């Protein structure tokens, strides 16, 4: 009795197994072995920073002619080199860069215009009378950039995002998420930042924020490399000339220029 059952079920199993094996061979999707190789090289985290649907999507994209093979932010230089070896194509190696938030307007530093109640998302809050901050270049601090970061490199502290340079891969997803465009990718070589975007005149900036650039021009005078210029009441550093000496940082009366000494985030230090 029991033998019958075993034979019967075993038979069915064998039949379907063979059937599946046959169909699997017959209808197999042919995959390019190079694509397979590239997929193995890629980190496989499917972060989407390259702009394609996961690592497989980007691997398929890499096969095309004129495709940019240097887009994997997570893998960095190593992965790009490996891909270029596989494809036998030269790849432009991007400099390691890190996202920097150009505002220091914590709670208590930058003034609020009104109390905001509603959706805790920067782009939604920005639609209501153009945001609750007095300064139109101030960080709204609802943490939309933190939510979109695939690497968990951003955390919010008193209404300002802190970026962990160790974790940040420079993918740039947060740049698109910020409704005020306050985030920029800057090469890790450059350590001095003017953390303000306000184009208002100094007096107005003083009224709105304790740590805004007031366009006083002291940094322009003190810079030995003549790397700083004033544009629309805002100090702008020319990174081709800057040598990270940090003299402007000492001179800045509002502490809106910051020197990032270690690999830790700028704001961790200040």
């Amino acid at each position, binding site marked *: 009795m029991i033998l019958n059952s075993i034979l019967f079920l075993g038979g069915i199993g064998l039949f379907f197994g063979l059937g599946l094996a046959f169909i699997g061979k017959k209808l197999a999707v042919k995959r390019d072995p190079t694509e397979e190789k590239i997929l193995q090289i890629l980190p496989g985290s499917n972060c989407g920073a390259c702009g394609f649907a996961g690592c497989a999507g980007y691997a398929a994209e890499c096969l095309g002619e004129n495709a940019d093979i240097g887009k994997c932010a997570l893998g960095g230089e190593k992965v790009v080199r490996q891909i270029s070896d596989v494809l036998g194509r030269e790849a432009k190696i991007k400099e390691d860069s890190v996202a920097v938030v150009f505002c220091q307007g914590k709670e208590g530093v930058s003034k609020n215009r*009104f109390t905001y109640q*509603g*959706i805790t998302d920067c782009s939604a809050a920005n639609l209501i009378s153009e945001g609750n901050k007095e300064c139109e270049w101030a960080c709204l601090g609802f943490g939309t950039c933190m939510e979109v970061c695939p690497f968990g490199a951003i955390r919010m502290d008193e209404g300002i995002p802190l970026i962990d340079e160790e974790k940040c891969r420079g993918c740039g997803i947060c740049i698109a998420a910020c409704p005020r465009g306050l985030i920029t990718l800057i090469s890790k070589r450059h350590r001095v930042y003017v953390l303000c975007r306000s184009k208002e005149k100094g007096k107005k900036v003083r009224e709105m924020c304790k740590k805004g650039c007031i366009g006083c021009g002291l940094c322009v005078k003190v810079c030995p490399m003549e790397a700083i210029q004033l544009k629309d009441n805002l100090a702008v550093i020319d990174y081709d000339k800057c040598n990270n000496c940090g003299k402007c940082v000492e001179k800045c009366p509002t502490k809106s220029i910051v020197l990032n000494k270690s690999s830790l985030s700028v704001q961790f230090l200040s």
Partner: protein
Amino acid sequence: MKKFTFKAGVHLPSYKKLTVGEEIKETSIPQQVVILLSQHIGSPAQSIVSKGEKVKVGQKIGEAQGNISVSVHSSISGEVIDICPQLHPVSGKKVLSVIIKSDGQDEWIEKGKEHKDYFRLSSKEICNIIKEAGIVGLGGAAFPTHVKLSPPKDVDIVILNGVECEPYLSGDEQLMIKYPVEIIEGLKIIMQTVKASWGIVGIEDNKPRAIELMKKEIAKQPNISLKILKEKYPQGGEKQLIKALLNREVPSGGLPMDVGVLVDNVGTSFAIREAVIRGLPLVSRVVTVSGWGVFYPKNLRVRIGSSISFLIEECGGFSFVPGKVIMGGPMMGITQYNLEVPVVKGTSGILVFGQKEVKKENIRDCIRCSKCIDVCPMGLVPCMIALYAENQDWEKAKGYNLLDCIECGACVYVCPAKRPIVQYVKWAKEKLKC
């Protein structure tokens, strides 16, 4: 008499008793007005005055640009002291404006041509007069009226909207009490312009005095009727009004003219009459200043461009520490943070609430109780739209007919989880635009 209404909606406490007996009073002349060049939907007007120029009341200071645009006029006499960007109370953005300092004379410019015999004018001529007079929909949307009055489709019925369903506001009611003859004349001009055969005036049953006076006037007209509606919000929405009065349904994404109807506010009708028959441009409008936070709530005839703080001064100032100031009604109005913003053509009310009246509610998760579905006057599923918008799935939200939402706020009013559904809708609409 049969009372009409529509399905769904909410019954709100009306709070109209604060200003119900208050006749429309003229304000004193403001020291300074800020006249925005973009007070309407469409392209902004172009300034035609320069700094230092003397202007008089009713002088055109902004020329309409293109078809969907209207002219803008000075509301006081005086000197142009600046032309610079100023805060728009509704959009919250800065728009180019003309700032005029009063000389205290209140001198009118030579009035436009009077057309007592308006029935001799063609539709095109009337539309031109209306465009030049700067008339927009005074119910709140501020859509240029001349565009509305030249519909590409046939319109057989004109509805005059005297519903005023928002709580607190009673400006339209007072306008109907004070100027019933003029409003009906305005309606006749509209009907002539769009060649409609029938006119209906719709009034909610909480305005007995207005109904009585309008009824007397309407009885003299052969092709105009008065219809009374039950008090319910948002009955003043044009789609709801058409459904309630005529049982016609405006198709999704369509306009009232698709069902042969045109809806205009009573205030607009009055402004049209003043423009066509007396040749006066739109330089003032009726604004209800109300709420418990203001000393003497009043209905005021306000010069366009007066600041909110000036109106509150006219009403005796704040009665206690203000917590919230809203421009418009309490349901659809926009909260203001700066009291120097000017009154625009679409401002129907200024509401002031004390600090104790303003509650801060915590937003909680949707529990799918479906109360919002019961009250949605457009028959949408607000909770699902809000959930998809919360998860930033804009296309799915659009699939729930997001674009049909009239943002009336009935769903937010009933939501037990205090979810800002209208904000989600506005956010999603903005995201779908780009």
